[in-house]
């Protein structure tokens, strides 16, 4: 190669590097930007698709921030509260061939394009989804618009609608179900629904639509998705004007009081103040009502809702938002001192940022590295960090690691259609032998916590801790020798005998049993399929432990670590298994107790794959799903859990706390202690404050 050519090449390289340096120096985008990392890409920009087949957690993080619903859930305690609704829905009543209920929304709420949200939007959404067929739409649509429950909806006035239901719904299908359904804008989605219905394949047609630029009803509007790189939401200044920042307060008190005071902009100009308080009990509610003369304002819409122990105050429109804020926040403070609030939450919801950027990293570790280097403020991470990454993050300056209980359960279960798994004493003996504390603390080094109930303790209102009697029955806190003795007792009660009986020798060591028999016949080999180490090492280790415990009892149990898909196919599609282990990610309302254990779901493909069938339990479950009173529903849920703890169709193994991390030198969250973590709250985009 000649000298000139070499010189040319050197020049090329130098120039290229110079240009790249120049690009590095390009000024970065201004404004207050909250930067989050995630490690799997979105699959769609369409909200319709996201609620349907695209219902991944990654789509939820971005797209799940822009749609209103009649009811919402309160922070931390997750109780149903009013969202778009002006007041609670009227009690469901029989009317002709239907059950009906009416509800109105507050006037003055707007979409980000400036148009008002009306009853037409609500009726369009629910009737439209029903027409498209929620089952065919798939995903979470049948949960929002349950075709077995919902018949149709009428618009009764500009802001009010009437539900026509086929059945009387319980809390799970009503407050936690349909009343929380997302509302779509009729003007945007109406023509798309029409085109889809006119097509040969309405579902494919509606899902093929990119669904953007869709007007939003919240503080956030979808801005851009660059596949493989990032997504962005920008603030809707129509719905969240800068001048109202800080003019809202959210207060929660020990016991369950929930209160908000806020000022919101109203379509057509002006502002409205509102106060909403839900008492935790009748006494507290009485105290609030006792304040009536102080609270009442002449120009206010002012209402008590005795059924829900709620006070709802909405002022008339005014241009003086400072005066409105002083009025409503003052009223909330009066209530706070009157009820003797012991605050569990007290902060001013935002938003305080102008944009939210979701940066995509190839792996969780790459995202963690970005967090350490300050490239992002928070990493969205539904499964949390494992030990190695957690330690690395804990050591990084400016990074705060925190943990929360997860709303999930890891368990093993049996095919109750087959012996000896259908023998309750067999199940009790295995449950008794498992030393969850040893596995979680010694083998798993604290990345998991021992579980004894299907409802995790993080879901505090519905969780039932084991009673003293139950602790004895389930060998909780027993030594290995005591566990063995009790397990042998159980097996003997179940009619099992041995060729060599397991026992505790005088020196305290355990002699394993051999040749276990039931009704004089040797128990055949039992296969236990559980996730392998590549899929989930925690369940793999528990699988080995369960197998060892069973073998000690002389049970010929063979554990087979395998892939997730193998387990799912064999358990749910074929029901060809003896024992299996998996996990569930759960909702806040424990209607899954019915779904997992009612005998009607024991058919092929159903969630009661173990085939548990108990008419008493079924009756409780049926009453639970129909219950409309939350206190009574809780009683029923506790009874159901007691049943499950005794009959053990599932043997809970462990709960996994979620570890997350954020740059505490860059951002502030109003709180970080919440079930399933900050990721589950989509990174608190409307609460976070930048301090960098």
């Amino acid at each position, binding site marked *: 190669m000649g000298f*000139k*050519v070499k*010189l*040319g*090449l050197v*020049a*090329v390289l130098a*120039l290229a590097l110079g*240009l790249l340096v*120049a*690009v*590095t120096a*390009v000024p970065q*985008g201004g404004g207050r*930007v909250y*930067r989050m990392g995630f490690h799997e890409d979105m699959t*769609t920009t369409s909200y319709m*698709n996201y609620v349907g*087949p*695209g*219902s991944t957690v990654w789509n939820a993080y971005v797209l799940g921030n822009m749609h209103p619903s009649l009811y919402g859930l309160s922070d931390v305690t997750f109780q149903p509260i009013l969202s778009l609704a002006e007041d609670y829905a009227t009690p469901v009543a029989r009317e002709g061939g239907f059950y009906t209920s009416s509800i109105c929304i507050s006037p003055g709420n707007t979409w980000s394009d400036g148009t008002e949200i009306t009853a037409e939007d609500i009726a369009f959404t629910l009737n439209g989804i029903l027409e498209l067929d929620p*089952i*065919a739409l*798939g*995903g*979470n649509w049948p949960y929002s618009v349950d075709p077995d429950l919902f018949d149709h909806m009428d618009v009764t006035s500009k802001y009010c609608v009437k539900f026509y239901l086929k059945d009387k719904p319980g809390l799970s299908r009503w407050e936690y179900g349909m009343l929380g359904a997302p509302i779509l804008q009729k003007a945007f989605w109406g023509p798309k629904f029409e085109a889809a219905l006119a097509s040969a394949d309405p579902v*494919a047609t509606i899902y*093929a639509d990119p669904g953007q630029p869709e007007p939003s009803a919240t503080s956030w509007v979808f*801005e*851009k998705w*660059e*596949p*493989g*790189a*990032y997504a*962005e939401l920008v603030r809707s200044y129509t719905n969240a004007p800068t001048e109202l920042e800080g003019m809202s307060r959210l207060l929660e008190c020990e016991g369950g009081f929930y209160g908000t005071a806020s000022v919101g902009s109203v379509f057509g100009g002006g502002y409205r103040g509102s106060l909403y308080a839900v008492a935790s009990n009748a006494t507290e509610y009485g105290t609030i009502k006792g304040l009536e003369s102080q609270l009442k304002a002449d120009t206010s819409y002012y209402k008590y809702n005795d059924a829900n122990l709620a006070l709802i105050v909405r002022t008339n429109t005014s241009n003086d938002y400072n005066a409105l804020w002083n009025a409503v926040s003052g009223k909330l403070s009066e209530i706070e001192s009157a009820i003797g609030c012991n605050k569990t939450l007290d902060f001013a919801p935002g938003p305080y940022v102008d*944009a939210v*950027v979701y*940066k*995509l*990293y*190839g*792996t969780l570790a*790459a995202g963690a590295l*970005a967090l350490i*280097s300050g*490239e992002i403020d928070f990493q969205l991470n539904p499964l949390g960090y494992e030990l190695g990454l957690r330690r690395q993050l804990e050591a990084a300056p400016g990074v705060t690691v925190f943990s929360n209980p997860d709303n999930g359960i890891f368990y093993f279960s049996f095919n109750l259609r087959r012996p000896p798994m259908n023998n309750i004493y067999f199940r009790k003996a295995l449950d008794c032998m498992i030393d969850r504390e040893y596995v979680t603390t010694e083998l798993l080094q604290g990345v998991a916590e021992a579980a004894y109930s299907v409802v995790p303790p993080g879901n505090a209102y519905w969780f039932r801790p084991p009673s003293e009697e139950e602790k004895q029955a389930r060998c909780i806190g027993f030594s290995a020798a005591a566990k063995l003795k009790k397990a042998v007792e159980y097996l003997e009660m179940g009619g099992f005998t041995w060729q060599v009986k397991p026992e505790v020798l005088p020196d305290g060591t355990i002699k394993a049993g051999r040749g276990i028999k039931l009704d004089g016949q040797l128990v055949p080999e039992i296969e236990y399929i559980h996730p392998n180490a590549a899929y989930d090492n925690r369940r793999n280790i528990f699988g080995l432990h369960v197998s060892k415990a069973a073998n000690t009892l002389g049970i010929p149990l063979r554990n087979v670590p395998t892939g*997730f*898909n193998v387990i*799912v*196919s*064999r358990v749910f599609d074929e029901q060809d298994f003896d024992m299996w282990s*998996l996990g*569930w*990610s759960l909702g806040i309302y424990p209607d*899954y107790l019915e779904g*997992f254990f009612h005998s009607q779901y024991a058919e092929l*493909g*159903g*969630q009661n794959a173990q085939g548990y069938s108990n008419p008493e339990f079924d009756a409780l479950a049926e009453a639970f799903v129909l219950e409309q009173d939350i206190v009574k529903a809780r009683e029923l849920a506790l009874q159901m859990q007691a049943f499950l703890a005794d009959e053990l169709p599932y043997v809970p193994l462990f709960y996994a706390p979620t570890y997350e991390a954020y740059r505490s030198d860059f951002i502030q969250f109003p709180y970080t202690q919440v079930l399933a973590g900050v990721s589950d709250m989509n990174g608190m985009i409307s609460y976070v404050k930048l301090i960098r």
Partner: protein
Amino acid sequence: MRKYLVKRLFQIVLTLFIYLTITFIILQAQPGDITNVYVLNPKIPPEVRERLREQLGLDKPLFFQYLQYLQNMATGNLGISFSQYPRPVWEIIKERLPRTVLLFLVAYLIYFFFGYQMGKLIAWKRSGVLEYSSTIIGSFLYTVFTPWWALLMLWIFAFKLGWLPNGKFITVEIWRNFRDISANQVFNLILIAGGAMTAFIFLSYYLGRRLGTRRAAANVTVAAVIVSVGAIAFLIASTTVGYLAADILKHLILPVVTLSTINFAGYMLLMRNSMLETIREDYVMAARAKGLPDRVVRNRHAARNALLPIVTSFILALATVVDGGIITETLFSWPGIGLTMLNAILSEDMPLAMGALVFTGIFLLIGHLVADLLYAYLDPRIKYS
């Protein structure tokens, strides 16, 4: 030659058919399907899963699915992605392809160039420090565990020194200021500009040679390089797209360096061995005996003839440019075809997985054909009949 071509095309079609069948069987042998994810959502009733299986055609007998798959392939229809339903597979491949092609093509060209040059030099100067050090370092890098090496590079150059970006292919803070421009538009422009620049330089070289002397050809080529670089510099400095392209190129450095350091040794050792055989040939001795300068004997007589196996290997490697590298793309957060294929397989998105595999397979088969034809062109002794 025509007869040979027809024969080879027939072979390609047959191989492709076998490949399609095997791909289908292997992927279908996985237990479960994409609807398995619904099983773990207690809110989703089982009938939703059943309906989805119907919509995706998963309820049909396997043989029927196979026939439909073959029919679709024959008509160029790669189907609909399950995980990004109802997005066509071809659209996803089209989106991811430029990213993979740019990264791997640049890396291939660089490590081919360095491998060729180093192999040539160390074969010529045997038993020297250069040979021993290059062979040891090259062998070490060639056998190094790729993820470890990639993470080390990221740790040093992105995390510790902060010279280069920590993975990804764009700087979000820059790109969010230019909302109307998509990364793929820029990727495509880079590829077009790169292709045009290369064509321009080669054309200049060709015309230079036609002018007569090598010196003239070299001068024209250097001029062409300078003009090309100047044009690129002008575009980068004066246009938004240019700036954005430079940002992509900046992100390209680390993965390209990682790939090149790992892979150049393969070509280096291949070239070295080929050269060692060639320099023993009589015509090389004759060239030396004629008193030609060492450099001329090495570059024009020995290296050219030693190039044959390298070129074949290079062409075959180029064909795999389209399938990317799962490890590289994952570690550098570079979502190309490799990463797409991995995610598709993990999520049981069969049409997308098969689409990506078929696309790669077709490219590989064509690559084989091109390599064979090039072989005949480079070595006149080879004749196809």
